[in-house]
């Protein structure tokens, strides 16, 4: 009971803003300040949510099936971005020669929007999970690299000098001082990366999909069903927030006492 009271006290403003937002949304749709054909009331979206738990119509799959497809896709792209992006950023930040070698290619590729890669992704990876994961990987990869790079660059030079004085090798300094000091920034990068991965979902599912939250939004568009579009959007937003929260908790555990 006390925990609930504490929670309410801490989050009262957030709860009020959410409630006001939902009430305003309901009012502007029910009283047709915004025509019904442009926006549906939240109550209809909630109704559709419960219907879509078991009903695959009209967009071809249940909400759970769409969710499963999308989470598999997003996490596969994000996982690959983490496996490749973090070590790459750390190496670029630590070894100047490696940075000189990789940076020009990275800088050219960085500003290209993931969606522009779709035609090439089809040619290279076909129309299965590979091409879609590649599109997501592209968007998730950049924040991983940049934050890992910046994180290791900010390693305290005093610590590095002390380690050198005590005879540590460059490799030892990299693993025992550089990487641990970069961890908070790496996690910030991972959170941004997960966010990007989840946000690129709709673009990735433009590519040969038959299920997924992005596909669900597309079908809503073709069937002129704004309720399906809004449900897809809210699910993407909610799951994205939950994933960010989970990653934040992991970060707290790992970096406990490390952040300045």
């Amino acid at each position, binding site marked *: 009971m006390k925990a609930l009271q504490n929670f309410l006290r801490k989050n009262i403003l957030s709860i009020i803003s959410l409630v006001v937002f939902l009430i305003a949304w309901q009012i502007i749709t029910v009283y047709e300040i*915004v025509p019904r054909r442009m926006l549906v009331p939240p109550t209809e979206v909630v109704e559709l949510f419960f219907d879509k738990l078991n009903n695959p119509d009209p967009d071809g799959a249940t909400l759970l099936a769409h969710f499963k497809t999308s989470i598999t896709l997003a996490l596969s792209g994000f996982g690959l971005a983490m496996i490749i992006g973090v070590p790459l950023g750390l190496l670029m930040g630590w070894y100047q020669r490696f940075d000189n070698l990789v940076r020009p290619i990275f800088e050219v590729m960085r500003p290209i929007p993931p969606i522009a890669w*779709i035609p090439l992704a089809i*040619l290279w990876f076909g129309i299965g999970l590979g091409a879609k994961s590649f599109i997501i990987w592209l968007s998730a990869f950049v924040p991983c690299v940049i934050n890992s790079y910046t994180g290791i660059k900010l390693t305290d030079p005093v610590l590095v000098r002390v380690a050198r004085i005590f005879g540590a090798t460059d490799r030892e300094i990299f693993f025992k001082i550089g990487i641990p000091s970069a961890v908070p920034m790496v996690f910030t990068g991972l959170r941004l990366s997960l966010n990007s991965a989840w946000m690129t979902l709709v673009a990735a599912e433009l590519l040969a999909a038959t299920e997924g939250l992005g596909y669900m939004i597309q079908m809503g568009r073709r069937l002129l069903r704004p309720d399906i579009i809004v449900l897809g959007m809210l699910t993407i937003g909610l799951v994205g927030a939950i994933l960010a929260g989970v990653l934040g908790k992991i970060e707290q555990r790992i970096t406990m006492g490390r952040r300045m």
Partner: protein
Amino acid sequence: MLKRRTGLIALVILIAFVLTACGSSAPKQEAAKTPDKLPLVRASHQPCMHALPTWMGIEKGWPKDHGIEIKYMFFPSGAPQIEAMAAGEWDVGAMGTVPALMAALRYGTYTIAISNDESETNDVWVRKDSPLLKTKGFNPKYPEIYGTPDDWKGKTILTTTVSTGHYAVVATLKALGLTEKDVKIVNMEQSQAIAAFESGQGDILQLWAPFDYIAEQKGFVKVSSGKRAGVDIPGAVVVRKEFADKNPELVVKWLDMYMRGIEHMKKDKADSTKFLGRYFRDYCGLKLDDTIAAKEFELRPLYDLDEQLKLFEKANGTSKVDKAFADLAQFFVDQGRIKPEEKDKVLSSNFATDKFLKMLKEQRAKQGK
């Protein structure tokens, strides 16, 4: 206390701002008219042959003859076109049967004429080495369809779902005694589907014009179409309900010019082919030459005013147009895309109407045309 009051005022201002901003976007321009200018009709079209009557009309300076000014609006496909219509951005336009049906169901639009017959140009393609090409006319009722049921079973079909193309694919499967469960349907946009198919993905490709001409250029072979599978896919001429109800005379004026375009296309194919080629290349940015533009005239029958009226003529309570839309609506019910009651609602609304064609016929009769 002061802080609380300031916060409250800020909240009220914020809500008022949101409501005002939203409210102001709702009603859009209705047939803008100034004393010096002719009334404006906003026409929406796609990179498709059914845009030509309007586009060519503007190029030839016809709108003035009909007492209107036309704002030409271009959309890549039916979905964004309908979204813009829902926002009140255009008044009249041409599109495929699927967006026309969906727009009628959700927004009460009218289908006032048929732009062309698209049954043959909603088609299905395979590569030259496909096993489907070994057999033709397995079902004697459908002699132009290639492949046996066994050839088709288990194949991956790249198709734009919830479209007339998808309708043609399902009709083809039905003609061979199959259903969608016997194949793997993969949803893709048309241009992406061609690229994927070219790179070896999928076994069968569904397209519509003008993308199917690109497929032909690449050496793919047509194995079926809506027409070959026995379904009618007419192109629809659509008007926004609010515009049509308020300005029927403007609808008729624009329709007069649109029909003049169709009649010119029927009469002078050589001239119209040049215009269509230019429209595809210069306006739409498609790499299609005049030979392909000429093919459009071969494959897509056009209807003049009297032929249009016949298509809408009701025999036993149903016209040919009604039947085409009813069959399509049933397809969507079977697919679970719309509910049976939604089908009944849209079909009973008589959204496909010859009211404006009849008004035009009368007007032309008065003018002695």
